[in-house]
Each structure stands twice: as structure tokens, then as C-alpha cells.
């Protein structure tokens, strides 16, 4: 996979994440946009106290992180690659924590949140390879 393809793939995954995180941020501030539907626990998760961190919606934090990743992909320097991989690692760690919360504390699954959590796995893989290439290509 060429360097350009790698960046493009990471950008596509990050953009998908931006879409989902953007929607979750929107419904956080406009909760009426969210309705209860059969089999969905999004409203329960979004309504839980864990949906905010110091008054800031967790979805908004995710959105900012993904936009920052896109900025780092555009920047494309060794520092940017290192920061992008580190940011994706942070995102993966926090996403794992959020999944644990849904499974064992909130006891409800938010499908949209899970989509974002899962997207971080390929994103981290792509960004790690991208960062490693910097090093091996001199």
C-alpha cells in the first residue's frame, strides 16, 4: 500500500468517524432529535452521566479528536505522524473504557457509539503503519 493510499484510507475512516461523532454531538445538544426505538439503547447511553466529561459531551471530544487527526494527516510531517498515532492510541484506550461502561455500568448499547469505537481500530492500525514508514523510509 503506497503512502498516499495509506493516508487516504486513514482520512476516509476518520471522516466516517467525524460523521458519527457529529451526529452524536448534535443529538446531545438537541436530544429531541433522538427518539426511543425498539432495541436501541442510544438514548439510555446518551442520557447517562458518563455522556459528559466536566460538562463537555464525550461525543464532542471524539469529534475534536477526529478533526485533529484529519489536520495531522494533512500536515504530514514526522511529528504529525507521531502525534496522529499517539492520538489514535489515546482514542482506542478511551473507546475501550467506553465500551466497558456500556457493557457493565450503563447496561445498554448505543450502536452509533459502538460504530465510532470500532472505527478507531483500523484507524490506529493505518496510522501506526504510516508512522512506522516515516522511520524506515528515512
Amino acid at each position, binding site marked *: 500500500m503506497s503512502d498516499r493510499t495509506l493516508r487516504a484510507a486513514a482520512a476516509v475512516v476518520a471522516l466516517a468517524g467525524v460523521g458519527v461523532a457529529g451526529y452524536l454531538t448534535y443529538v446531545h445538544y438537541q*436530544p429531541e432529535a433522538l*427518539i*426511543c426505538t425498539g432495541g436501541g439503547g442510544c438514548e439510555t447511553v446518551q442520557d447517562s452521566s*458518563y455522556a459528559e466529561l466536566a*460538562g463537555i459531551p464525550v461525543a464532542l471530544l471524539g469529534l475534536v479528536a477526529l478533526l485533529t487527526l484529519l489536520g495531522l494527516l494533512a500536515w504530514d510531517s514526522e511529528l504529525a505522524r507521531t502525534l496522529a498515532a*499517539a*492520538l489514535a492510541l489515546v482514542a482506542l484506550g478511551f473507546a475501550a473504557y467506553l465500551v466497558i461502561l456500556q457493557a457493565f455500568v450503563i*447496561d445498554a448499547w448505543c450502536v452509533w457509539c459502538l460504530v465510532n469505537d470500532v472505527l478507531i481500530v483500523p484507524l490506529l492500525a493505518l496510522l501506526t503503519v504510516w508512522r512506522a514508514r516515516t*522511520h524506515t523510509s528515512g
Partner: protein
Amino acid sequence: MPPKPRKPPPRGGSGNRNLLIAAAAAAVVVIGLVAASLLLRGDDSEETSPTTTGQATTLLDGIPQERAILGSPDATVTLIQFEDLQCPVCKRFQEEAFPGIVEEYVQPGRVKLRFVGMAFLGPDSEKALLHVIAAGEQGKLWHLADALYANQGDENSGWVTDELLERLAGELGLDYEKLSTDADGPGALQQANSMAAEAQQREIPGTPWFYVQVGDAEPYEVRPGSFDIEEFRTILDDALSS
């Protein structure tokens, strides 16, 4: 002349060190975020006053109730509310918009409300709905619905217990024996099925969902942009002026 060999890419050194520093920093940030999430999480609405009846309960006293209808029979405008008693968004509507609607439109006899219960979220929804319908036989459907929202638990956690229903019935002045018998009877089930059929016929995608009916005209769908009372003022004033 042999080609000049390319300089091999650097291995180890500052690049790897930077990567290790970044990974360590990422781990520290994750730990910090998790700690912050646990310490600085938002308000947990479910932890507030789980043993009281709803905030709108006193507002409902003195307003005519005929089964699922709340308000004066002479009111020409009806706000039809499709709800699931387990739905947290319905609970939010109940807490934010409902008291204002009752105070400004139902108490003065300008608008009446019609409850259409749905039970698609699970067994607790069904049990709650049947008991709320049964409370309608004692003229307190809206009281029990409000009290159940105030005590809403986690989805399908078994929170609609007999103990909860008995306690709420006592606080609301309902005959619990009759409530329990009526909830298990064919009448409540028939009404619940009728409500489900109406929701299906109108293709209600989720709850809460609203329709407005003016007189005997065909009800029309309304979509408030928020649970701010101003949104409902616009909807109901339009209906009243038509």
C-alpha cells in the same frame, strides 16, 4: 564506476525514542481521561428522588380524566402523545414540556391530551402500560404514568416491580387490588392492543411522537424542535386558531 550505495535508513535512535515517548504520553492521557470521566461525569438524573411521584402529579389533580384522555371533553384541540413508559426521551418530555402544557393549555380547558401507550422496548414497558391503562379505570392513568416516569429504571432491568406499583398506587390514592386485577384482565390488554394498532397504522417510528387533532378532523403529525414549552405553544396555538 559502481553506483554509490544509498544511505541505509536510520534505525533506532531518536525516531524510536520519540515513538516511545508518544506512546507513554498516550497511556498517561488515557488514564487521565478515564479518571476525569469517573470524577467529573455529568449529572445522573436517575439518581434523583427515585421514591417520589412525578413533578406533574399535583398539576393533574382536579383535571378531568376519562381513561386515556386528560382534560375537558369540550376542548376542541387534542394533543395525541405516543409514548413508551420505559423511554428516557419520553421521561425528558414529561419533565420538561409536559408541566407547561398542562398548566397553560389543559388546566384552562383549551386543549386535551390523549395517551397512546406503546410497549416496544421490552417486558417492563408492557407491564407498566397495562397498569397505567388499569389506573385509567380509576381516573388516574396520567397520574400513574407521571409517577412511573419519575421512577424510571434502566431499560428492561425489571424495575416495574409489584412493590413499586403498590407503593405508587398508595401514594396516588389508587386501589391497588383493583389496579392489579384490571391490569391482568382482558380490558387492559384490549386497550393496549388498540393503542398498538393505532401506532402501527400511523407508522410511529419511535417515542415520543406527537399528533394534533382539531375537532373530529383527521389528526396531523407535529414535530416539536425541542421540549421547550415555546415549541408546543406554537403548535397548540396554531391548532387553536385554526
